[in-house]
């Protein structure tokens, strides 16, 4: 493989976007969790929810910070490395990103200040409003970015300027609510909630293993297990919906996901295979035959990759395997959610056991599923940036390979440093747990909870 500006730019984009997506995915879910915790505290007046809030808001601040700085990179990346794409598609997806900044980014970033530093200056209700503003901001942000990305997957509502070759919108409603957007937005939002639930569960399980069980720990495990058990079935449905849409609009992507080479009326589900793109076949295939009528609602024959010219096919191996890893991660999280809820029902959540040991590594599975899911979506869209209309190789900036190699290395080094530090700091807070006595109310009531002194006195008195 020759390392030209194209392959380097693709590597760089894949790297910075995969890094970035972990943090929004986590903070979308965590913001919602914090809003729920603070709401429960206001509503029930139970101390435990305040403690959960104050604990996780520290982790939220770290994750959000990394999300913001890696997000700034994304907003410049389109221009620095994908200039032709920016020029051609700017009049269609530019406004969607513009709306994201106007309706979401400012809302999140501004009210985060109130959320973290405003306890003493606003009342509990207003503070709750600020938390909700941040949570709503994160979902609005996901709305626009998914809309823009989905338009690249299933472009509609546009025309092409014969003079410049640029896309322009003819129907904004069709652009924003393009065919793959609704299913993909639901799929991503659920993924964010599930990712966060898996992390919260893992942190709770770790505290149990270390014998630091307190009331917030129990609630953490209950809420996280319940969320997983409740949302994972919905997620399977949303994933299936998304797959049906992809099958309709991007059959080559689905053929790669399934590992189908030949077109046939009835296809099987391949559990294991090593796709061999050169010889257009699978090696060591293990397949359940005849499953497609149950999975795909269509009378048409199901196209295999051979139905597409070679230069119209996405890379099969990464799409095929990412899809399987994503599904596998989801299944494990569903199982862990069910197990956790069962233990809750049997009142055995705080007894360390196999569940807790397995729940700790499950904490990363949400991220694994998010990243592999996006690999399926993005690699599956290849060889196009705007599916069917603008090829990736025609989207790139006129930059020198050496410049791109430099930036790729810089981003790798910088992200490695901040990722390592960020994960260490977050894990330190998450595993520290709530090893203070939860029942003591803070004495200095005139200090709003969360102010530095209040948290200091809380700790001193609760220790």
């Amino acid at each position: 493989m020759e390392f030209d500006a194209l392959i380097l730019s693709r590597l760089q984009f894949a790297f910075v976007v995969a890094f970035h997506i972990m943090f929004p995915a986590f903070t979308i879910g965590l913001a919602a969790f914090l809003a729920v915790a603070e709401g429960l505290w206001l509503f029930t007046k139970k101390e435990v929810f305040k403690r959960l809030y104050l604990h996780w808001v520290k982790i939220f601040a770290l994750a959000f910070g990394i999300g913001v700085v890696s997000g700034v990179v994304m907003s410049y990346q389109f221009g620095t490395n994908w200039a032709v794409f920016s020029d051609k598609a700017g009049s269609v997806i530019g406004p969607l990103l513009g709306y994201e900044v106007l309706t979401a980014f400012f809302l999140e970033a501004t009210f985060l200040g109130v959320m973290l530093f405003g306890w003493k200056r606003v009342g509990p209700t207003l503070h709750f409003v600020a938390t909700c503003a941040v949570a709503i901001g994160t979902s609005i942000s996901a709305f626009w970015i998914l809309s823009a990305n989905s338009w690249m997957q299933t472009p509609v509502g546009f025309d092409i300027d014969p003079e410049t070759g640029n896309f322009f919108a003819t129907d904004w409603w069709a652009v924003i609510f393009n065919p793959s957007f609704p299913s993909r937005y639901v799929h991503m939002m659920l993924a964010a909630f599930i990712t966060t639930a898996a992390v919260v569960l893992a942190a709770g399980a770790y505290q149990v293993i270390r014998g630091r069980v307190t009331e917030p720990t129990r609630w953490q495990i209950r809420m996280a297990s319940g969320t997983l058990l409740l949302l994972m079935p919905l997620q399977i449905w949303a994933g299936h919906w998304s797959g049906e849409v992809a099958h309709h609009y991007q059959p080559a992507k689905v053929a790669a996901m399934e590992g189908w080479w030949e077109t046939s009326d009835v296809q099987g589900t391949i559990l294991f295979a090593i796709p061999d793109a050169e010889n257009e076949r699978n090696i060591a295939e293990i397949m359940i035959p005849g499953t497609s009528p149950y999975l795909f609602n269509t009378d048409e024959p199901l196209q295999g990759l051979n139905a597409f010219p070679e230069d119209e096919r996405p890379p099969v191996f990464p799409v095929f395997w990412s899809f399987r890893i994503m599904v596998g991660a989801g299944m494990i999280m569903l199982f862990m959610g069910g197990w956790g809820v069962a233990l809750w029902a049997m009142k055995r959540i705080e007894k360390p056991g196999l569940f807790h040991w397995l729940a700790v590594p499950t904490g990363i599975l949400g991220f694994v599923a998010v990243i592999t899911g996006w690999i399926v979506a993005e690699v599956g869209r290849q060889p196009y940036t705007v599916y069917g209309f603008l090829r990736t190789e025609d989207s790139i900036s006129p930059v020198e390979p050496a410049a791109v190699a430099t930036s790729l290395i810089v981003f790798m080094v910088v992200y490695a440093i901040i990722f390592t530090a960020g994960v260490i700091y977050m894990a330190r807070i998450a595993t520290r747990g709530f090893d203070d006595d939860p029942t003591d109310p803070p004495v200095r009531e005139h200090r709003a909870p969360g102010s530095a002194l209040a948290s200091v006195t809380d700790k001193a008195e609760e220790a």
Partner: protein
Amino acid sequence: MDYPLIWSLLIATAVMLYVLLDGSDLGIGILTAFAKSDEERNLMTATIEPVWDGNETWLILGGGGLFAAFPLAYAILMPAFYIPVLLMLAALIFRGVAFEFRHKAVRTTTRHFWNGAFSYGSLFAAFAQGLILGGFIQGVSVDGRSFAGGTFDWLTPFTLLVALSVTGGYVLLGSSWLVLKTEGGLQKWSRAWARRSSLFVALAMAAISLATLSIDPRVTERWGVTMQAIEFGKFLPLAPIPLLAGLLLVALWRDLSILGDKAPDWRPMVLSAALFLTGYLGLGISLFPYLVPFELTIWETAARDNALQLMLVGASIMLPVILAYTIYVYSLFWGKVDPEESYHD
């Protein structure tokens, strides 16, 4: 309606707000390198911790807005400034995470590392933004619809001058903000830094103004000023801008060195911001209507009218709302900074 014109004004405003708001944050970041103790450093960062996230969002609006409203300008300028943009992004990453990480580091060496990341991140971000501004003013080479120059075209003595000036200007903004937000010894120290940087900014603005006049004949033509003669018919209507800048500098100097703590705490900040505005206005007059100087205008690089129209609907609703809650949050944290007020532990 002339949508490209409206959008160029909106994006210019967004960039201006970024410069004033986050420019102050970056200036404070640079100043933390000279802080005498960790307490002082924490106090300095505490003055901006609740607002920096929102402030940096104006930069995203600047970049995202350029992409959305002027995709061709974005597609040409970003590759042209590939290296300075990379430097800015890397620096902003360190600066941004250091806000939080500084407080989480346990060992002294890691705390030093994040303190360094904060001040150097701020320094390099400011410097890189100056490089981009300088490269923008001096213009980029274009062929058809793409950038046609080399990776290091932006690197000239002029861009280095602009980069130094922007850095000094940010220090002025940051130290003026500290004069407003702190008390006692730290305030006195900040005032001394504001004084030094205001002198530097005065020299830098004069140097850049003169250098800009010689960048392109079209700039000279607009101001009516050449090295040999001044064409008063053109210069006089524009003369109030440099005149105002001069007056602001005098007033600022008077507040900082003659009146000292007898001047109201808010005034250096307002005067510094106003000084930036005059510089910005002068720049706008020099370059208008070019968005890719001196090749393509705002109309040639604009997105389709229906895209600009759609965004204008959103902007006219959302920008007032954003400004309202930004002002609300600033007023919420009004007054001298309270060292106890933090959720850190």
